[in-house]
Structures are given as structure tokens and as C-alpha cells.
């Protein structure tokens, strides 16, 4: 089967700095892929290139064989900070993607309502972002990305601003939502356990330049409950990935403090 998304010899330079070099990845339909790596390995840049928010310096991104260069409703982006418009209600924030595309008919409204129910925000449609907790705002962020019915969901550390307990809940919620539609997902995270818990494959990136060090297939059965995090298989995956990036992380920590 042809890959849903392929990154071919993708590279990105900022001035003299090689941020990404020779990225070659093929992602199948419905796969959940996590990108982990130390700070500065270019994982967010990679996601932004796929989103079309940033041009690649070389190589190409193919979605169903078509090259993508600009943002489009075939991809939905879930941001690290919720980026909700404070003057819009939950519902009108969630429907903004279709609205920008000029589609706000009954079908889109129904779909947006269904998605808000799916992310657990039924009854909060007319609330304003300032009335919601951080976790609830991230649910709107997710519903907004899903509202354009994207073929690929691009998630940039969406739970990093949440406290540890809320993050765990959001991980299981994301799993439940993903099981419903099985979209192809590219998920950037710092948390190795989050990556292992969520994904089918974890792409471990190295830094300077950012490149794929290892492609770790996670063979844990689905659906996964939070208890899977305490199994020895799970811990072994986390341990293995940690050892792959440990030196890089140490180097980046030292650099940041220098």
C-alpha cells in the first residue's frame, strides 16, 4: 500500500544552521507516529513543514503522492498553546476552520457539535475560553483541528502546558478519540512515556542536524489503558528510547545553560 504521507530527503536550513537533514519517512494510513528528541532537534520545524507553515530548504512532503507546500484543510494542526480567539465562544472557535473555507452550513455545524461532544465539551459550546481550564481549552484546540475533517492530524506538544494528572487524562482521551476515526497522526512530544503510550511508531530524532536516529515500532496491544505504563514491556520501550537520546539531551541541556 502506498504511504499516506512521505517525507523524501527533507532538509531545512536557517542561515548557516542545519536544522533538519535528509529526513526520509513513510507513514501509512491511520498510523499514530510520535516524534521525540532533545530540544533543538527540529521536531517542531518538521511538523511545521508538513503543515505548510514553513517551506523546506530541500526535499519534498507528499500527501497521497501530491506535494504539499502550503497549509490546507487536508491537515489539521493542534498547537502547543491552545491559540483560541478570546472573543469567540467554544463553538465558534471550533468551527473556524470550515468558516475560513467558506463552509458553515448545517452539516459543518452538526459535525462541530458532534466533535465537541466527542472531546467531552458538550454543554460548554457557548462558554468563552477564559471560562475554561487549560485541559478544556486543549480539547477545543483538538476539536478545532478535527472540524476540518483532516486526513492527517499534526500535534505539536499539545499537552506540555498541562499538569501531570491532566496530561495523563488527556492522553487516554486522545486515544479514545483516535480509536473512533483512526486518523493519521504526527505527534511531537518531549515526554518519552507519552510517545510510547500513544504511538504505533516512535521516530527518535538526533540533533545538529536534526535527523531520524531510529524508528521504534511499539508493539503494545490496543486499546491501551493507563495501566500499560506500569508493564515491563512499556518500561523497556521508554528505557530504550531514553538511551538513544540521552547523550543528545545532556549536550542540549549543557548548551542551554552555558
Amino acid at each position, binding site marked *: 500500500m502506498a504511504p499516506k504521507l512521505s517525507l523524501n530527503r527533507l532538509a531545512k536550513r536557517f542561515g548557516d544552521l542545519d536544522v533538519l537533514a535528509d529526513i526520509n519517512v513513510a507513514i501509512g494510513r491511520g498510523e499514530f507516529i510520535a516524534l521525540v528528541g532533545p530540544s533543538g532537534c527540529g521536531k517542531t520545524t518538521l511538523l511545521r513543514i508538513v503543515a505548510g*507553515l514553513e517551506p523546506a530548504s530541500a526535499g519534498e512532503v507528499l500527501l497521497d503522492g501530491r506535494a504539499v507546500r*502550503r497549509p490546507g*484543510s487536508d491537515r489539521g494542526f493542534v498547537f502547543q*498553546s491552545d*491559540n483560541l*480567539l478570546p*472573543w469567540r465562544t467554544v463553538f465558534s472557535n471550533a468551527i473556524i476552520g470550515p468558516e475560513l473555507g467558506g463552509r458553515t452550513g448545517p452539516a459543518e455545524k452538526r459535525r462541530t457539535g458532534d466533535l465537541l461532544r466527542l472531546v467531552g465539551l458538550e454543554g460548554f459550546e457557548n462558554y468563552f475560553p477564559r471560562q475554561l481550564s487549560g485541559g478544556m481549552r486543549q480539547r477545543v484546540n483538538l476539536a478545532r483541528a478535527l472540524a*476540518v475533517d483532516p486526513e492527517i492530524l499534526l500535534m505539536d506538544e499539545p499537552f506540555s502546558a498541562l499538569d501531570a494528572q491532566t496530561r495523563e487524562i488527556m492522553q487516554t482521551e486522545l486515544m479514545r478519540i483516535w480509536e473512533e476515526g483512526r486518523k493519521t497522526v504526527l505527534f511531537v512530544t518531549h515526554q518519552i512515556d507519552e510517545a510510547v503510550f500513544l504511538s504505533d511508531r516512535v521516530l527518535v530524532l538526533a540533533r545538529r542536524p536534526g535527523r531520524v536516529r531510529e524508528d521504534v515500532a511499539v508493539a503494545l496491544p490496543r486499546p491501551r489503558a493507563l495501566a500499560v505504563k506500569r508493564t515491563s514491556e512499556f518500561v523497556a520501550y521508554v528505557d530504550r528510547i531514553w538511551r538513544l537520546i540521552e547523550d543528545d539531551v545532556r549536550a542540549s541541556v549543557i548548551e542551554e545553560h552555558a
Partner: protein
Amino acid sequence: MATVETRSPIGAAPRAAAAASAASAAAAKPSPVQRRGLKLAGLVSILAGLALWELISRLLVANALFLAAPTQIVAAIYKLAVSGELGHHIAVSAAEFALGYVVACLLGIVLGFAMASSELAKKMLAPWISGLYATPTIALAPLFILWLGIGIWSKVLVVIFLVLFPVTINTEAGLRTTSMRLIEMLRSFGASPRQIFFKLSLPSATPFILAGLKLGIGRGLIGVVVAELFGSRAGLGRLISQSADAFNMPELFAGVVILAVAGIVMTAGFTWLERVLVPWTRD
């Protein structure tokens, strides 16, 4: 919620101010009983101040040539109102203020838009705007009277000069401080520059524009009065200057009180408008 603002506008920076008041409210949240007590404290303070004023002017100064007591001022306002003189002065000043204020606000918003959307317009206009904003243009009032006569148009021009620049500067700053993160979010959904402007820049600039308009009220009132002092046939400034010439303190204060009330009422109106139009800036 940290909002990155590259440039802060003049006047009340609504977000920062809101954040500060939210922080202080969190530090000591008064109970309902305490809050009623606090509200009462304001009233008591006003009444005590008026009583003190009354006492000082009746007993200490005891000279109607230098200070009028609040009761005398109220009596003067009543007398002027009954004779119809006050209504005429108010009507003239209000017309001058309203004409100048509306023209300045519309023009200021248009100029602010132009400066925010075109680098060329900004480069050309910015030195004039910031230069004239810093200049006490009220000093030009005699010149305007020379040009336009002692009727209302010289005052309208003074008001325009005083109100235009804060509105322009705030509009421009508001449009320019649109959050990059939010622009990026809209772009990710394929928004056009036009959509970004109408769905994001404009609403996020609204609190700044309102702050500019609010700032314009006080400046506009000063403009009306001072321009009238330089030369006019009618208006509250005229009332004040002719009362001063006649050492009629109650009528002088009557003019001042009417102006103060007008300023307070209009500012309160804008505060209410902010609560209705931009409720998200409160917390």
C-alpha cells in the same frame, strides 16, 4: 496567560491593567459585606469632602470673591439653568466637542489602519503623528481663532488636533500587536490576509482603539474649554472666563462642575462599552 506585546499603546494598556487588577483581586478578595462597606467608604469620602469644602469656604475663607461653597454652586447652576443661559453654553460646547471628537476619531482610526497596513504610510506619517502628539497643540488655539474666527469652528479644529493623535497611535499599535501565534493558527487553516485582518487583527485591536477613544475624551474637553478661553461668544469656557472677570465664583465653579460631570459620564460610558464589546480583556 502571557501575551507578547511588542509595542504598548498609550493610555490604559487594557491587558496589562486587567492582569494587574486580577492579581490584586486574587490577593485580597473582599467578602460581600466588606464590599458593601468599601462602596460606602467612597460615598462617605465624597460627602465628607463636600462638607469640608462647605465649611472652609463659609468659615475659613468666608469671601465669595475667592471660593464658592458647594451649596452656592448648586444654587448658581439652578439659576443659570432656569434662565436658559446654561443650556445655551452647554449646547455650544457640546457641539464643538462632538464635531471635533467624531471627526478626530474617524480620521484617527483611518490613519491608524493606514499606518498598520502600509510600511510607507507609517514611515511618512509616524514623525508627524508622534511629533504633534508631543506638542502642546492647544497653544495653536489663538492662531486657529485668527484663521477661523471666534465661532465654533476654531474650537472644533483644536479638539481635532488634541484627539486625533492618541486615537491614531492606539489604533496602529493595536493592529500591530496582533499575536503572531494566533496569526499562525489562522494560517494553518488556510486563512487569507483579508480574513486574518477581519477575523483577528480588528477584534484584537478593539480594546486598544477603545482606550484611545477614552483618552480622547479628557483631551477633547480641555481643548473646548481652553480654546473658548482664548476667544468665543458662548460655551462653558466662555462662562468660566466671564465669571472670573466678574469675580462670580459660584458661576465659575458651575462651569467647572458641568465639565467634570460631562467627563466622568462619558468616561463611564466608555468603560461600560468596553465591558460589552471587549469582555475578554477583563481577566
